[in-house]
């Protein structure tokens, strides 16, 4: 993975020193809250319901074991002993004291982490496939490109005050595991017929109040031109994106207003007008190769014989076999697997991870996964490279830390935002809804098969409810929590927005409503279908009917 150079280290040290002085002045009364707010937000510090919240960027969801230990220490020493992994592949700490934040940021800088650009109207964390670099269906590892774009986007002088925040996702495999189509700008890595690497570029995706899926602005941009081309996209947005209305400020609204044809024309005109600048921004092969060297695969052992050993262990222990089936993914290296660590033990807050669990995962990563950990956008962790002969031992040790729930991709593997239990923007609670549903559905989730339930506690949609197979949006209606339910969403290569099944329901009606939707799905589905397949075939009506008849 990318290691900071001297320039990076110096910059971050200076930034922490600046911030320390800003906090000092704030606490001394020399800065008002109005003056200080943007300064703290530029370092990822929000003020939520109960305390300050610190959001730490985890670039493209890749962590070293040392970084994860650094986060564990923040949880233990400066928070209440846990952190919350988010749908942006970041982590948030919910109980932070302002007066301690300079020390926290200094501690994080020592492990090459920070909260810069986790807020504000600029580029946010660049996200990607959690199985980047190990997935068999991948064209190339996307992380070198993520890092190149990250460096270009970090404190970019021209794009530091965009109309609104800007999220970029990069996917390099056949399957889209980065939810690219719900991002402001998406990059699908492609290899052309001539063997050249480049990207399909999408723009205008986003959820929130007005959910829209991204559309393709150019089918193939050679990688040499990547930064110049996305600069052109950003210039069009920076010039024409609306600054007069917060609700219409994202690039998706601009693309919707212009239409993709006109948007494409604007971008191409801008790109053509860039002239010499294009050359200045060109990515030479040597620069890409140098970055790729930072992400070179580890020295895998010859593990070709591990499969037989694993099969034997699985045959003798059904619980282990179930975990293998649900929580491991194929690895391009023979005899290896990627392991998904569930942060969704049934009935516990989704995505939360205690300091001791973080240390456990860091230790296991050092021992069994070349010191590498990934964060997934569905709020789980991944040990990317584990020898199959080590899986049984790993399973036992994860289990001892309540980290081996075999539910990845199943009904209890729910995405939920922090909701009204923590968040200043929320209109209803999310976590208790997720807990109740997980407890209720866990007993039959194996029979249901893959099912993505996603819950947001407000219209901003941090829980990605629009693209859940079953989506739940918490609202406030006449002073009470009320939940709007959608079905048929998905966030993969065939991304779709869910359809609303009817009037919102009260909190106590959610479980029964979701039960009826699942029953309808099980009746309707044909062999081999998953929820989105069935929905595409039958549409919304039979699901609505299932609820209507029940009422």
């Amino acid at each position, binding site marked *: 993975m990318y290691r900071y150079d001297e320039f990076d280290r110096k910059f971050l040290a200076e930034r922490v020193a600046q911030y320390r002085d800003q906090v000092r002045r704030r606490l001394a009364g020399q800065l008002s809250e109005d003056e200080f707010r943007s300064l703290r937000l530029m370092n990822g510090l929000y003020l939520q319901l109960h305390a300050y919240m610190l959001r730490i960027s985890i670039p493209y969801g890749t962590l070293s074991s040392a970084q994860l230990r650094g986060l564990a220490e923040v949880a233990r020493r400066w928070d209440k002993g*846990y952190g919350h992994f988010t749908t942006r592949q970041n982590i948030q700490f919910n109980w932070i004291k302002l007066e301690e934040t300079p020390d926290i940021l200094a501690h994080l800088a020592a492990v090459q982490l920070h909260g810069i650009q986790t807020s504000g109207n600029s580029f946010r964390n660049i996200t990607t496939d959690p199985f980047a670099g190990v997935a068999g269906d991948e064209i190339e590892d996307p992380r070198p490109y993520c890092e190149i774009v990250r460096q270009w986007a970090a404190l970019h002088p021209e794009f530091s005050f965009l109309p609104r925040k800007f999220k970029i996702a990069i996917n390099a495999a056949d399957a889209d595991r980065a939810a690219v189509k719900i991002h402001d700008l998406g990059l699908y890595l492609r290899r052309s017929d001539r063997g050249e690497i480049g990207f399909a570029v999408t723009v205008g995706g986003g959820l929130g109040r007005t959910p829209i899926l991204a559309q393709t602005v150019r089918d193939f941009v050679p990688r040499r031109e990547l930064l110049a081309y996305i600069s052109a996209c950003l210039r069009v947005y920076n010039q024409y994106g609306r600054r007069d209305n917060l609700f219409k400020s994202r690039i998706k609204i601009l693309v919707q207003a212009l239409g993709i044809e006109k948007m494409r024309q604007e971008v191409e005109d801008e790109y053509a007008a860039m002239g010499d600048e294009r050359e200045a921004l060109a990515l030479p092969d040597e620069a890409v190769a140098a970055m790729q060297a930072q992400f070179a695969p580890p020295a895998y052992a010859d593990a070709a014989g591990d499969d037989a050993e694993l099969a034997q262990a699985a045959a003798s222990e059904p619980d282990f076999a179930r975990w293998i089936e649900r929580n491991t993914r194929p690895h391009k290296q023979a005899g290896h697997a990627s392991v998904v660590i569930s942060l969704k033990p049934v009935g516990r807050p989704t995505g939360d991870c205690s300091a001791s669990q973080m240390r456990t995962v860091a230790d296991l990563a050092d021992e069994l996964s070349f010191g590498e950990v990934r964060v997934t956008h569905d709020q789980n962790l991944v040990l990317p490279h584990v020898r199959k002969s080590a899986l049984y031992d790993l399973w036992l040790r994860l289990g001892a830390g309540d980290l081996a729930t075999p539910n990845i991709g199943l009904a209890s593997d729910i995405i939920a935002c922090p909701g009204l239990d923590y968040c200043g923007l929320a209109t209803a609670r999310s976590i208790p809804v997720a807990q109740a549903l997980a407890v209720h559905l866990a007993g039959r989730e194996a029979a249901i098969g893959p099912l993505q339930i996603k819950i947001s506690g407000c219209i901003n949609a941090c829980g990605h409810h629009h693209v859940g197979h079953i989506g739940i949006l918490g609202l406030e209606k006449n002073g009470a929590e009320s939940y709007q339910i959608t079905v048929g969403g998905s966030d993969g290569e065939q991304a779709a927005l869910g359809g609303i099944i009817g009037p919102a329901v009260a909190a106590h009606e959610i479980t029964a409503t979701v039960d009826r939707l699942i029953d309808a799905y099980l009746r309707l589905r044909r062999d081999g279908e998953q929820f989105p397949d069935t929905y595409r075939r039958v549409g919304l009506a039979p699901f609505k009917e299932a609820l209507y008849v029940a009422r």
Partner: protein
Amino acid sequence: MDDPTFKLVTGNRLRDGAVVYFASAGIWTPRIDDARLVEEKDGAALLAEAQAGPPPHPAVGPALIDAVRDGDRVVPATLREKIRASGPTVAYRAA
């Protein structure tokens, strides 16, 4: 008849973000039961009093909220303020 609704002022403590309630000039308390309650018509004056004082002000974002009395206890009107007053409704993970 409904219980009378009162106004009180709440904010987050500057140095650590903790939820606090305005009690009297310069005094903010973490206990909502110790907050100063006024009738609706006196809300604006209470807020002005809470906002007064030299910098640094001890509370960030002072705001008026509604609450009712329940015996010795003060109960906020909205779920959001109930959660602010008594913490998340879900257990969090111990270290």
